[in-house]
């Protein structure tokens, strides 16, 4: 099961900069490894991560095979208003996995 661990404060002061920590379970198969028969193991990585804040993109990452397995990514965003933060990871297979969190901004 592809799991995601997301660490976002539940509340913040308006204008405060908050840290978002993310960890996704994913092998990030580089495509450069060989199996015991000598065949190349096909590439299978998360190649894009997007964070939207009430629908507006506030952070985006293009990822390459050099990102370690079980990708760990932390970044910051300004707490502008209460609402929903949506985090999406997209793999080489085109599938997107999403986590959402609500934040209360006073």
């Amino acid at each position: 099961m592809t799991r995601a661990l997301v660490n976002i404060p539940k509340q913040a002061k308006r204008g405060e900069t908050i840290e978002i920590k993310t960890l996704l379970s994913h092998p990030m198969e580089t495509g450069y490894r060989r199996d015991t028969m000598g065949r190349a193991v096909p590439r299978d990585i998360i190649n894009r991560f997007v964070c939207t804040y009430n629908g507006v993109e506030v952070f985006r990452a293009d990822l390459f095979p050099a990102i370690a397995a079980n990708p760990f990514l932390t970044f910051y965003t300004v707490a502008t208003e209460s609402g929903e933060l949506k985090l999406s990871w997209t793999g080489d297979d085109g599938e997107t996995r999403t986590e959402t969190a609500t934040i209360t901004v006073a």
Partner: protein
Amino acid sequence: MSLFGAPRVRTRGIMALAVVATAAGATAPIMSAEIPPGERRSGYEFMSPETRAMQDDDSANPGTFWVLDGETLWSQKAGEANRACADCHGDARDSMKGVAARYPAFYAARSRPIDLEQRINICRTEKQKAPALAAESKELLALTAFVGRQSRGMPITISGDRLIEFLEAGRSLFHRRQGQLNLSCSQCHDDNWGKVLAGNTIPQAHPTGYPIYRLEWQGLGSLQRRLRNCMIGMRAEPYEFGAPEQVALELYLMWRARGLKMETPGVRP
């Protein structure tokens, strides 16, 4: 008096082992010195601050994924008996507290010690009437990680008269020279811990965090996998998963680490 004295363990049997070991030490100078109790350190203390931070923060520790999977499996009905672990054991936070810290444990029905993986599979096959989980399978690792997590912070405790002969077997294996390099575990981990070998500091080899997320594996693995890894590195024939030598070594290593706190799921280079 005893080289191996520990406050919690006072059985006659363990003192007997101490006498045997002291005598062995006197008559067999090839036996390396045990690490004095006051100098024992978990592998955690030999890691960089960054790797330690990765272990300490559940939301940065990939081992957490296996713990969460184990939590899900705990409540899943399985086998012909259609039972979940939770049906017999209730909330693991209560029932499994301290369990991993005292494994391997003596299992009377087999007259030998078994490790946690074997214990889980006994439940699987006998109580749930489900097939055993394969060694290093995602499910078995998830369950051992979940059960192990319930012992985090608790001191390792191995005790019991009936374990003596197996402890001695484990200790001899630990001290036995083997493989193309003719090295024993003890030569690195008793005699040369703290020194640097190929860019990594040699730890004392205490199994405080198992199953661990090993950066080298890019995944979670058991103590038996790690022991096989060591033996391959030493150019020795590794023991098969579940072999009696593996369990004897696990038992000895846990006993050697007694008193140190469990860290499951640990992160190690």
